[in-house]
Each structure stands twice: as C-alpha cells, then as structure tokens.
C-alpha cells in the first residue's frame, strides 16, 4: 500500500499531465475552451433551479426560499454526480488503458489517481457554480460549507473502493460493465436525489436506510440545503465502509494483477 503510494508520487508528472491533457483535449479547438466547464454545470443547475421550481413549486419543510426544491435537488446532485462519475470511470479504467498496461510499466495506482483528480476538478467547478447560483437565489449557508470537503472525501473513498473492485472484475467478467449502468439507474432512484426522503413511506424508509448513498446524499442535503451539520454517526459509518472497500479492492488488485494483462 505504502509502496504504491510512493509509486504514485514518483509518477506525479505523468498524473499531472494526464489530468491536464484530459481537460485540454476535451475543450481543444472549441472557441471558448475552458468556459464550457462552467457552462455545462451551470445550465444543469439553471434547469433545475428555474424550470423545475416553476413547475414543481412545492416548498420543502425546512427551507425558506421559494426555490427550495431546486436547492434540495442541486445539493443532492453535487454528491451523486461525483460518486457516479468516479464509479463509472473506474469500471472501465483497466480496459480503456489496456494498451498502456501491455506496453509500459508504471504504478497502476496512477490510473485511479488521475480519475479522482479529473472528477474532483469537475466537481469543484460544479460546486463553485452552485454557490454562485445559491447566492443569487438568496440561499446562503456559510456555517456548514466547511463540511463539503469532508463529504467530498468520503464520496471519493466510497466511489473508488466500489469502482475499482468492479473495474478489476470487469477485466475478467465483462458482463459487469454492461450490468452496472442498469444498477446505477436503480441506485439513483433508490436514493433521494430528485425526491425528498420524507415522501417515502415509513415501511420503505427502513429499507432505504441500507443504501449507503441514502446517508451520503442526505449529508449533502443537510449541509447545503438545510444548513445543518450532518449526522456524525452516518459519516463515521460511511468512512469505515469506504475505507473497507478501498482496502478490499487493493487486496483484489494484488491477487488479480499477475493475470490482468493476460486477460486484456
């Protein structure tokens, strides 16, 4: 574990240029370049904030603003999108980099680090846009904003742990790559992102509680929408779960790596 972290440090130049190149090539030859990075999340937030709020103008308990629903939804999306971005990219990371892994020797840990880096940059851009939009809408929760980095860290831990484990298995059992988008759809709808958790019937609430993302997105809601500190119990639980998953995927990688390149 320590060895591979050292490897990642030695290859920091490769990691840095990979992340930069990902951004550069995405916006290469477009006229306004990097501005698209703000425009994409901004338009998403605006759609939720203006159109959906106008249509579904129901106020949520606990938020004063008339844009309550939009604020609730955006807060949840910030967490969900980071989780699903990292997970989806980890799922295909070894298959997409097959050629690189077959031809060159480098610490493989660099690959998830690159993914995390580029997903974090997107997430931070989204967060910045959200703050501006919230401020425009008159919704401001400065006291709890410091929790966001903590939540981000936990989300990364969970997404990397689960994503890498599935990504390793996906090299050998390619059905996983096909199955996961379906599971992610289910997971999205079994997590209160586009609907308030309160509208779920009591009996189902206990079932939902088994979904770790229920607690994660819930924490984002508390911090960004309600301006409250998240449940510490939930955070500790999620951190332990995320850490456990990361360790498990590290073990799985060690077992799988002798045969990994053979199967690519």
């Amino acid at each position, binding site marked *: 574990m320590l060895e591979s972290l050292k490897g990642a440090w030695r290859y920091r130049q490769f*990691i840095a240029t990979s992340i930069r190149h990902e951004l550069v090539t995405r916006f290469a030859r477009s006229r306004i370049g990097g501005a698209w990075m703000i425009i994409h999340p901004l338009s998403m937030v605006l759609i939720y904030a203006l159109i959906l709020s106008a249509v579904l103008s129901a106020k949520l308990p606990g938020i004063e603003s008339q844009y309550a629903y939009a604020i609730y939804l955006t807060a949840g999306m910030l967490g969900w999108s980071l989780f699903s971005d990292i997970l989806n990219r980890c799922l295909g990371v070894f298959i997409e980099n097959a*050629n690189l892994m077959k031809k060159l020797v480098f610490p493989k840990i660099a690959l998830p680090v690159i993914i995390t880096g580029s997903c974090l940059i997107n997430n931070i851009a989204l967060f910045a846009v959200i703050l501006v939009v919230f401020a425009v809408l008159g919704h401001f929760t400065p006291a709890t904003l410091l929790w966001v980095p903590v939540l981000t860290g936990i989300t990364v831990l969970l997404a990397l742990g689960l994503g890498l484990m599935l990504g390793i298995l996906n090299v050998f059992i390619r059905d996983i790559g096909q199955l996961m988008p379906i599971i992610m759809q289910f997971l999205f709808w079994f997590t209160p992102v586009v609907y308030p958790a309160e509208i779920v019937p009591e009996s189902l609430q206990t079932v939902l509680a088994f979904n770790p993302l229920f607690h994660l997105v819930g924490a984002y809601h508390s911090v960004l929408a309600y301006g409250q500190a998240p449940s510490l119990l939930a955070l500790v639980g999620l951190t332990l779960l995320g850490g456990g998953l990361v360790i498990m995927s590290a073990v799985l990688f060690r077992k799988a790596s002798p*045969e990994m*390149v053979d199967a690519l």
Partner: protein
Amino acid sequence: MNTNAHTEKQPLLEVRELGKAYRRYQNEFMRVASWFSAVPPQEETWILRDINFDVAQGEAVGIVGQNGAGKSTLLKMITGTLRPSEGYIRTHGRVAAILELGMGFNGELTGRQNVLHSAGLMGFTHAQISAAMDDIEAFAEVGEYFDKPMRVYSSGMQMRVAFSVATAFRPDILIVDEALSVGDAYFQHKSFDRIREFQRQGTSLLIVSHDKAAIQSLCDRAILLEQGRVLQDGQPQDIMDYYNAIIAQKENAQVEVTPLASGQIQTRSGTGEATVTQISLHAINGNPLEVVDVGQEVELRIDIAIHADLPELVVGYKLKDRVGQEIFGTNTWHTHQVERELTAGEVLNYRMRFKANLGPGSYSVSTSLHSSDTHLTNNYQWVDHALVFQMVNMEKDFFLGSSWVMPTIECERQAATRLAPNESN
C-alpha cells in the same frame, strides 16, 4: 583466464527457468476463486518454458524466431508488463523498451506537451524532462512543428519525436522490437548511431528483428526461439544461418549443422533432391585460388548432382563478409537461366565468372538449389560457408570497405581573385 573477465562483470540481466503459461478456467468466476484458494485451471497453455540466459553489460543480444515463437512474450516479461508463471528475471538498472513508439501520444497536444507526458509515463519528473527537452527537440529535428499539435504531423515526424523521447535518457537495458525501421533513411542512421552510442556507454541491448542485417551488424550474440524454447544461443551469423534454414525447412527436409575448422558453423538444409558435389574458385587460366587480388577476374565452379526427377532447378550463390553481411547474391532465376525437366542422375557443371571487386578480408560463399525465385519454395539444398576465400590488395591504392568502387578523381583549381582596394571599402 577468459572466464574471469566474464565473472567480473555482473550480468545486467539474468533470466532463469523462465516460463509463461496462460490458464483457462471453467468460467471466469473460477478464476476469481483461484486467487483466494487452490482451484486448478482447466487448461494450461505454455507459451515459453525453460528460458535461461544472461546479458552482460554492454552486450547486444538479438532475439530471433518465427512468429509465435514467444519473442514478444519474453520481451514483455523482461520489460515487466507481463508476470512470469515460473522462474524469474533479475535486472540491474533501468529497463527501457521501444516496443511501440508514440504510446499515449495525443493529436490535440503539441510535440512538446506530448514529450512531457510521455517522459512522465517513463517515470521522470518535470525537472528532469525540462533539462532534457532541448536535446529531445534537437534530436527529433521537426523544427517549428515541435510546438504545433501532433495531428498536423506526418507519421514520420511523429516517429522522430517518439524515438527522441524514448531514448532521451540512457537506460541500462534497452529493448528494441522491430521499431528501428522508423522514418526515413537519414533518421534510421541517426537512431542506429544513438543506440550504438548507448551500447558503448554500457547499455545492454535486446533486439527483436527479422532483419538479418540489423541483427548481424548490431548484435554480439543471438538467441533463437522456437516454440517457446531456446533452440540455439550463439554467434549471430551462425544463428541467422540456422534460422534461415528452418524457415526453408519443409517436410522430410533436414537441417544439419557442422562446426568448421575456422570455428564457424556450417548449416546445411534441404530435401537433398539436388546437391552441390563440388565448389571451387579458379583464376581465368584454370588455376585454383584461395587468395584473390582485388579486381581479379575469377571463376566460381559449382558441380551439381541431381538425385530425383525435378521440374525445374535454380542455382543461387551469395557472398558474405567476415561478419555475415551479405555482399552480393543472385541466382539463375533472376538471370533467366532456369534449367527445366531434370532427371535423376544428371550432373550439371556451372561456371560463374565475375570480377572480384571486393575489399580485403575473408569472404564466404553460400549456395542454394531450389525451384522458383527464392529458397523458401522447394529447397533442395542450402549450404552456408560452402567455400571461404581471402581477398588481398596487392596492387591497388589503399581503400576502405568491402567493395572496390574506385573513382577517377579530378580537381580544378582556380586562382584566388583579389578585390580592388577601392571596392573593399
């Protein structure tokens, strides 16, 4: 005493009992289960087995073999991308591989940015790469294109940049896989020179190529792989002759190897349906020759016996220099003198006259008897080192090299023209 010199130098690369197997399981879930408990694979396919060799510092070793012999697998294991199934590889120092040039290059980025990325992938830091950047740019010689996006490069220019960055830092072991035929002739020479320079500085080379000339000119030693095993390990010239023979080998053909008094190894192969019974070199007056003067007219006599009815026969010969480089070769197919409808028991006497416009040194003659234009179809007999002769320079002016292409040299001298003093101001 000789062995002492070897043991003093610790080998840079040690390969011991190396083997690689691909394992197949009933299904992939069984494979996953096998990582955590003893689950026997359904089938094991060995790609390589029992590979043993050392490579000393500064030594250049060629790896040859037919497609599927396991060359690439071996190189990938030495590079470290594939893990051995048994045995081990011990390397001392940095291993660099030119397996596929331009790995990870991105068309939207400039040459400079790609170099930064690519060298980062080799594990170098920003400071190290920046220090080498000017050299990389100078070596690639792509001019102002270095700061343009790579999608506007020609493929040759991409290769130049790729080679420059791949060889920007001298490795201790350099693995080259067929990649040397990059770019134009000028750049090929330049890249060969760089590789030779590395070798002089102590880099060990491992070269995979089907190019006989490249193996013989660069390598001190060659290893012939056949069906995942080391078939031969020795002098490049001998190995390439043997390799040539097995390519030509057909059913019921035999490859025979005999050591010669000179220390070289003679390879014979073929079906034996036609054989060379005698080969000799003579002066024009008929006297047999062993030493030939530069430019002397000689006659190569080849007597052939036919042992089976053959539809056609092509006779070819090849002159090779001391290190096995081909100097000249032709056959009666190319000269439109194919003999047809031969019957068993016939004897053919060939007399081939040519001017020996060769440089001083030792040369050998290889003969081949076959049908159609190459010995790859119906190889009746192939003999390497069928005849060896010496070239000496008895009366010509001194010259270098293996060919005598003497020019007439003319020089015109023009008197210096003096500028008038008032014009110079």
